[in-house]
């Protein structure tokens, strides 16, 4: 049996009725005098299950993603009453327009030199991803997760933070490390689980950790770290510190309870935290509508908590930086949390274990209306006369060379199945500060 499925068509509610007819039915029902007769007028219920606009084989369609003109969204004062900027949760703050100009009230915060550095970080991250994906295919690591298309989010955000601030990242924010000049070789040592792996082989590839670089250890579970970011920020406030925190989550994981816990704690205690939602449209095979539900946007989730919520073009380095800086200023001024939704697109697979052609059109990324963050910043810098096609091509080659050099250095210390590796002792150490006797016995039984 087919399960009685109704595909909602255009202008139709899931029950198969036009909105007007349901409305009139409702009015009719409300005007009914007797409960008994009213009941008879209700139609049978049906379950609404959201579906993406298109599937493999269909033409990509992002007509539902409304893109406001660059520069059109106002920039409020950081001490604005959140109630006055509710509309920002439904718009998209953009700085770079189609021509590559930086326009509007959120523009003008970064120097050419800073922008060139930003471009370099994004290119570095992209080259790093390309090499590590290849290394995974070559069996040098078990697993990898790339950032393709999302480089601006973490690279630009990092520049709005200061030394000492703390990120609680997910697995797709390596730009936080790259843009803080964390050594690529260290990242690769972790990915290769080699003898110099900072995590001693214990963690999945890309689950980096670096307190010195404001990068909390990634767990690999979802949403758990979001509420921890709020706790870290509360601690900073308890100790009258000046440091702030940033939590990271994907669109899909906002469905987890920890997301909602984070918002209520941040709201109640006005924690100095930036709550980032990276909406890259896809949670493995699940389109963002499943987690978003009837909420207009993910940013709008903040409104019910009284948290100022901004939505930003996640493929616009300048806009990401501007919004992150606004939120960081609010936090530093003790004005409390800010929720930011980065509207972006996951161009690649979720991970090396995923094949997106099974659930979305192959050419969907080409139709993504917010473009490529690297090409957009490049165009802006060329327009400003501080960059050129030639210099870009040269930089691409130099950056790739730099990544390859780092990879060679890392590989000298081993890869997952070859060369130097962490000790078996590392399995047993670090469970507790002091190894309890039962684990020591087990280590000895293992022969170490």
């Amino acid at each position: 049996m087919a399960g009685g499925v109704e595909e909602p068509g255009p202008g139709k509610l899931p029950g198969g009725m036009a909105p007007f007819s349901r409305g009139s039915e409702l009015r009719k029902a409300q005007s009914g005098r007797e409960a008994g007769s009213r009941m008879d007028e209700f139609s049978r219920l049906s379950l609404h299950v959201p579906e993406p606009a298109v599937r493999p084989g269909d033409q990509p369609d992002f007509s539902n993603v409304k893109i406001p003109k660059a520069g059109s969204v106002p920039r409020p004062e950081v001490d604005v009453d959140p109630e006055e900027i509710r509309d920002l949760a439904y718009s998209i703050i953009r700085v770079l327009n189609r021509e590559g100009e930086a326009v509007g009230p959120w523009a003008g915060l970064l120097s050419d030199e800073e922008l060139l550095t930003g471009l370099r970080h994004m290119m570095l991250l992209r080259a790093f991803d390309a090499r590590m994906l290849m290394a995974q295919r070559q069996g040098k690591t078990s697993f990898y997760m790339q950032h393709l298309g999302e480089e601006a989010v973490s690279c630009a955000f990092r520049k709005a933070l200061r030394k000492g601030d703390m990120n609680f990242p997910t697995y797709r924010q390596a730009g936080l490390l790259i843009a803080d000049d964390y050594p690529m070789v260290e990242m690769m040592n972790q990915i290769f689980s080699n003898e110099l792996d900072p995590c001693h082989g214990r963690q999945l590839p890309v689950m980096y950790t670096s307190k010195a670089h404001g990068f909390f250890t990634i767990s690999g579970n979802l949403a758990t770290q979001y509420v921890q970011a709020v706790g870290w920020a509360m601690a900073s406030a308890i100790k009258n510190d000046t440091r702030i925190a940033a939590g990271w989550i994907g669109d899909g994981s906002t469905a987890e309870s920890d997301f909602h816990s984070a918002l209520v704690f941040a709201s109640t205690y006005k924690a100095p935290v930036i709550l980032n939602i990276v909406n890259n449209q896809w949670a493995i095979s699940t389109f963002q509508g499943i987690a978003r539900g009837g909420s207009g946007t993910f940013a709008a989730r903040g409104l019910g908590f009284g948290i100022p919520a901004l939505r930003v073009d996640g493929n616009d380095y300048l806009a990401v930086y501007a919004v992150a800086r606004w939120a960081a200023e609010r936090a530093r001024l003790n004005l409390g949390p800010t929720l930011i939704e980065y509207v972006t697109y996951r161009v690649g697979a979720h991970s090396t274990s995923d094949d997106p052609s099974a659930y979305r059109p192959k050419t969907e990324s080409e139709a993504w209306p917010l473009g490529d963050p690297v090409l957009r910043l490049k165009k802006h810098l060329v327009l400003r006369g501080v960059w050129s096609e030639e210099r870009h091509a040269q930089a691409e080659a130099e950056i790739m060379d730099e990544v390859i050099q780092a990879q060679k250095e890392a590989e000298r210390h081993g890869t997952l199945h070859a060369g130097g590796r962490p000790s078996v002792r590392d399995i047993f150490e670090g469970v507790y500060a002091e190894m309890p006797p039962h684990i020591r016995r087990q280590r000895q039984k293992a022969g170490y």
Partner: protein
Amino acid sequence: MPRCRPISAASGRKRGTDMARMTMIEAVRSAMDVSMARDEDVVVFGEDVGYFGGVFRCTQGLQAKYGKTRCFDAPISESGIVGTAIGMAAYGLKPCVEIQFADYMYPAYDQLTQEAARIRYRSNGDFTCPIVVRMPTGGGIFGGQTHSQSPEALFTHVCGLKVVVPSTPYDAKGLLISAIEDPDPVMFLEPKRLYNGPFDGHHERPVTAWSRHELGEVPDGHYTIPIGKAEIRRKGSGVTVIAYGTMVHVALAATEETGIDAEVIDLRSLLPLDLETIVQSVSKTGRCVVVHEATLTSGFGAELVALVQEHCFYHLEAPVVRVTGWDTPYPHAQEWDYFPGPARVGRALAEAMEG
């Protein structure tokens, strides 16, 4: 009911019969398919299980066949998945939900332990909770600490939950149909390293595909395997090995390699437990090795050893030995130093024989 078949050289579907060779993934899918076809109250949902058919493809094709109100994608919220399943069960449906990895079940633990497990008891049967929570479990895929865990003891410790861990496609299908038809909540742990073949711990060798293994033979239609019945995988007289899931195949390999005449019991159900089969076997052999992938301390092996001690004390000729994962989080790079493979099980067999 068909039992284990003799080894046949044929691979794949045999024409003119109702038996096909299935992977454990296909067997699990077939169980849901058969159940959904027989009973319109059976619904299937979880993360990525709808259109895509699950990250391990266990639900592939079910949405197309039964419609998206009976097989659908859930938001990434394990507490939401289990909580709504409980609500649906209270209404009268029979939800069979997927938690993408057993390691992700913790947000649902409150719903499972304080709600699903106790609804019948606290309402004196006014409400019941016939749900199945499927979850891929165990290591062996370089999944690190968040894709390798074996949390079965966290469920067996909860009164009101049933816990099932199959080790073959045939059992997986029959047990899953039983679980779906069961009036109480069943935790159905699928050893992901067995999805494609009977992995015996020899990671350096390719695994035999289920399509070339007699235990991959699975009837197309409806059949059940009772929850609470163990299966003896190898008859023997020297020592009893109690195992479940992946470790059944590791134990069989260790037995062959050491030449020790072990009787290998595949529990299949942890709760309820087939104590009778255990007691009969240990009373016969006088020796016992308990094997599981999960960590040692307070693991299910502790319960098994206690029961053996209570029921077979005067038959025991040596201390019972446990072989388990070490008491640490599951490491990534040192996977094969952590996984209790055939060499470690073999040493334990020898130890049990010497004592």
